């Protein structure tokens, strides 16, 4: 049973982000990390490998050359090998173009399960997993708090309004998991050292049989405006007071705004 985990390199959480003139994110100005929600997909895949359910775990990413760092970090956590799809023609790729490229790469890698995080920390489109499943014509098992594989069937446990559902489909599938699968492991020092010796291949669009024309400038959508969120008014703090006094202050504050 072969798992390919799709990961995205994103700007570090909580840092100031800038946009370039063409309204794409300036990736050179900030530290890059593995999309935190993808780390849960990595953890789920490695747990299946630890349990002997998965025979191999491969990482797949589409991005600039430096996305190789994210793949090395994933390999330091565990897994066997990695593929980076990188091509100048992919600059500014939107969800559609990303899904098209990942689907083509997955056709080539032919995994039983293509596993992804539920969203990316930067764009938060959450469209890519569904688009990849549709393009490959395989079932999508989304938002799993757990992924279980039994012979030729994959199942995800998904929280519902009344409890949870188990949703199953025959392999191969595309699956996404939430942050409920369990905390991602830390890379060990030996893991970091071993990751340097694990295979990391780089593919261009030509390796996937996709022409630049087919990608229509890498995007069907266009970003028309980008701006930072408006600054919030400074937080008023009520602290270091006895409980009764603090409660009175909070009540007065709410009353002054006619909230109580």
């Amino acid at each position, binding site marked *: 049973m072969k798992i390919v985990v799709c990961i995205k390199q994103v700007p570090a959480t909580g840092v100031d982000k800038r946009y370039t003139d063409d309204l794409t994110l300036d990736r050179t100005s900030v530290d890059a990390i593995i999309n935190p929600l993808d780390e849960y997909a990595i953890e789920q895949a490695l747990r299946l490998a630890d349990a002997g359910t998965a025979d191999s775990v491969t990482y797949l990413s589409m991005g600039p050359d430096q996305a190789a760092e994210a793949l090395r970090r994933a390999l*330091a956590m565990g897994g066997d090998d990695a593929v980076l799809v990188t091509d100048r023609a992919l600059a500014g790729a939107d969800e559609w173009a990303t899904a098209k490229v990942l689907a083509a790469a997955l056709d080539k890698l032919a995994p039983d399960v293509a596993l992804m995080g539920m969203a990316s920390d930067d764009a938060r489109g959450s469209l890519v997993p569904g688009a990849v499943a549709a393009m490959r014509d395989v079932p999508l098992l989304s938002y799993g708090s757990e992924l279980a594989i039994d012979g030729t069937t994959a199942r995800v446990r998904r929280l519902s309004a009344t409890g949870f559902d188990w949703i199953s489909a025959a392999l191969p599938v595309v699956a996404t998991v939430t942050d409920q699968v369990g905390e991602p492991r*830390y*890379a*060990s*020092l*030996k*893991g*970091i*050292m071993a990751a340097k010796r694990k295979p990391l291949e780089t593919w261009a669009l030509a390796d996937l049989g996709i022409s630049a024309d087919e990608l229509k400038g890498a995007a069907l959508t266009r970003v028309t405006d980008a701006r930072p969120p408006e600054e919030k008014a400074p937080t008023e703090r009520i602290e270091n007071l006895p409980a009764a006094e603090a409660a009175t202050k909070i009540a007065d504050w709410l009353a002054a705004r006619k909230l109580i």
Partner: protein
Amino acid sequence: MTYLLTPEHEELRAMVRDLAEERIAPRAAEIDEKQEFPWDLKELLAKQDLLGTCFDERHGGTNLDTIGQSIVAEEIARVDATTSLIPIVQKLGALPIILAGTDAQKDRYFPRLASGEWLAAFALTEAAAGSDVASNRMRATRDGDDYVLNGSKRFITHGSVANVLTVFALTDPEAGGRRGMSAFIVEADTPGFAAPRVEHKMGIRGSPTAELTFDDVRVPVANRLGQDGEGFRIAMETLDRSRLSIAAQAVGIAQGALDASVAYAADRQQFGQRVVDFEGIQFMLADMASQTEAARQLTYAAAARVDVGASDLPYWTSSAKLVAGDTAMKVTTDAVQVLGGYGYITEYPVERMMRDAKITQLYEGTQQIQRLIVARQLLQRAGVAKRG
């Protein structure tokens, strides 16, 4: 000579920093308050292979260079000095075996130390023999294929939690400490060995500092390190290297206090503006930052010299420990000042950092001993050392 920080060093730093911030920092205040050895963090560090950095790969270690080992100590000490002592003392306890052990001794002890299954400690200091190491009194008497150890040790870091200790005792009391002391590997479950008491301390309070007693403790001759009478030399060569870990620890403590100061000053409002916008605070932060960086670079410069076995190693490691220890004390004291009243209470970490910093001026040779070592090396270089 030159030294270089590689991308691998930065990767290591990022890994240890993540672990330290997410898993160690949240425990630091509790460890300090309860004075409990953090067994959970020992397990965590072992799992991440961070207790085996000074051991060869054939023994299950990762054989990091000394700059890499310094980075590990520094990044852990940045959030908790107590926990940084777990890898530091693992190396300190093992160094006599690394320096003077036979292959058989290394094969017996290193796999369990590299994996972190066992902890090591270094037992040299006695109640009446601190800086004056040669005045040690503990005895080791040869009896057939054994030595019989009698006496006591004091101020032994991790003495009560270690599974194996490197212990220094007189085999020839007539010859005195310098020529009559020998080094032994003692397993903690050997009959007659006990750690009856741990000290109540100002800082590094989760790290047990133990009194050890040896009552007819039988140690096989196979566990002697080097030859009879080589103990003093082995102890000094150990300390020439191990005190660099304390320099790294001190750099980490200083960096942690600096980071806490910047974060606090950027948040705190007084007189209608952020405290960090006052030049008086900026000047303090600038001094703290540049002094910490200077101590760090001296520590790395010394670390590079450990790896090439520089002949003037004591000059470098003692200089680094002297500068870094004094820097940690000054920077943490200033950090308390930057935080004002909040710096003095346990709600913020800097008062703990200030208490922890003090030990870096005391252990593995007081700052005064470091100055004597640096001066002796200096006079040798200049060819004006006292003879005899």
